[in-house]
């Protein structure tokens, strides 16, 4: 029962981390290696607004999500747009931006154990003999709502359909009058907001530390690779696979193995079936 409950919670938090990465890659084909940095920066912005400026929690969250979105858009507009389509340059430049943000935060004095965000709701409830605090339940609810919302957004709104069209075939989308650079920019903004949502829902459970930026990056890559790069639903299901695998390995092997499982999942998926469980890429394009 403990495995079931905590496996679900862990899976949803992984899905939250991975969704933003999957969205950006799915639409603009840019592997956003600054994802972890966007996640952490949102946490710090929220903390600053909340503690230093004394804004109410909800306002701080909304503002920091907005800032994160703008940051993502700027990152695309100023840097990534110039290297789009060149795989190596995309990876190197987005990773370099992420590195600069994370290490800059570390230099700026954000280190140590003192940075925490308040939880949404205090208290806990017992589910099937396992104590679970309310915040984790809220997190699961937010995660599921977010996935459902994304599904509705991409299937029933004009903007969402345009984004999906671009994800499927960029040239055809261009012919139908969809501005691909603008859409890719929006996707980057959405990806950054999703990273922010993940940060705000997950970070109250622990401290805000710069190192977790790298952790989040690896986790979101793991989720996206296993699910198939560019497939959001795939990422969601893969999050459950990896989430449960992690909890099982922690219970039966030891906490060191949590990361081993994720990285092993990436390597094995890429070797055995590079397009992932739900990937739409043609097999031939990925491997010879």
């Amino acid at each position, binding site marked *: 029962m403990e495995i079931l409950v905590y496996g679900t919670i862990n899976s949803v938090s992984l899905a939250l981390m991975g969704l933003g990465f999957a969205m950006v890659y799915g639409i603009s084909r840019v*592997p956003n290696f600054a994802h972890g940095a966007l996640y952490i920066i949102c946490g710090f912005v929220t903390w600053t607004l909340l503690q230093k400026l004394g804004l109410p929690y909800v306002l701080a969250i909304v503002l920091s999500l907005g800032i994160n979105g703008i940051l993502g858009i700027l990152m695309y507009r100023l*840097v990534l747009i*110039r*290297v789009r389509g060149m*795989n*190596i*340059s*995309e*990876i*190197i*430049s987005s*990773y*370099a*931006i992420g*590195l*600069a943000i994370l*290490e*800059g935060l*570390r*230099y700026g004095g954000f280190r140590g154990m003192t940075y925490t965000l308040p939880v949404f709701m205090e208290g806990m409830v017992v589910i099937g003999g396992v104590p679970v605090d309310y915040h984790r339940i809220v997190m699961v609810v937010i995660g599921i709502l977010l996935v459902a919302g994304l599904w509705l957004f991409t299937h029933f709104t004009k903007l969402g359909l345009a984004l999906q069209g671009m994800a499927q075939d960029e040239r055809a989308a261009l012919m139908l009058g969809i501005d691909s650079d603008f859409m890719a920019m929006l996707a980057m903004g959405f990806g950054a907001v999703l990273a922010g949502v993940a940060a705000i829902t997950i970070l109250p459970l622990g401290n805000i530390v710069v190192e977790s930026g*790298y952790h989040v990056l*690896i986790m979101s*890559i793991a989720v996206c*690779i296993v699910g198939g*790069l560019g497939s959001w639903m795939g990422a969601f299901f893969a999050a459950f696979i990896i989430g449960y695998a992690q909890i099982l390995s922690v219970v039966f092997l*030891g906490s*060191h*193995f949590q*990361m*081993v499982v994720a*990285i*092993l999942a*990436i*390597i094995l998926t*890429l*070797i055995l079936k*590079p397009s992932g469980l739900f990937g739409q890429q043609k097999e031939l*394009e*990925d*491997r*010879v």
Partner: protein
Amino acid sequence: MSKENRRKERIDRGIKVRSDGLYALMSWREMAYLIAPRFILIAGLLALPLLMPGLYWQRVISIVCIYAMVAISFDFLAHYVGLVCLGGAFFIGVGGYIAGIFNAYFGMPPLVTIPLAAIAGGAFCTLLLLPCLPLRGVYFAIVTLMYPLFMARIIEAFDLFGGTDGILGIDSFPSAFTEQYFVVGILLVFVFGLRRLVTTDMGLIFTAVMDNDQAVRASGINITYYKALAVFIASAMGCLAGACLTHIYMWSGISQFALDFSILPIAATVIGGAGTLVGPVIGCLILVPVSELLRDFGTLRIVFYATLLVAFILFRSDGIMAFAKRKYEQIERWTLI
């Protein structure tokens, strides 16, 4: 004369054209023109340890050479074979650990462990990367980026080879002089060896694999064999660098799998000039000392070189070496349209 009706044209220098062919042998001037850049590189690298004040900066030169070896192996794999390997740290770590194990547990001297680490480490890395060889582009890049992290976690989780403490008590080189000239010499051999290799028939096949692997396959050439061979060459170089690093610091541990060793060589390659094989060396000669100078600023130096990297990718994506080559071989002038 406004800017609209002018353009810049670049024309090869006469001496460059004359020294392209066999005519280069006709006069000392043409020969000097050909030899000068190579001579500057060799003499410069050999003189560097002597010019450096103090042991600290001599040590920095050794570290520069080690990064440069990883960087040229990245450059070779990425721009001559088409495999973008982001896992330089994997090679460094494997080489470092193998050298450490043979030295600390079996008591072999550094001059035995280093070649041994290069060969055994190269074979080990090639074996592990063999299943990923069919992958291309971003997939190969991500999987190689994960390998060093994976190795580090495995060593941590199973507490292998001293676990988080690493292997202690490894012999150093006999003297600082041997240490520096050993790494400088090896680096020069690698640079000129690789430049020669990519012009041979084998190099032609490597380039063909990068351009169109299906065509190579259709010619009856086993591409997996050639890709594995290229990975072996590159990883042996990386492992040798790792083994030298272990003997310089007299220690090998998990931090040899750190992302630093994957990112800095790539940054150096981008800055120095991708696809030139000499550019990475120049990039390392700039980046490593700069990051040593900025050591007082702590993590701000990482911010600095990440920013520099992005700036170079955006505005000077061909790198310093291509720029210098253009200046050396061509004249530029404004002409009326």
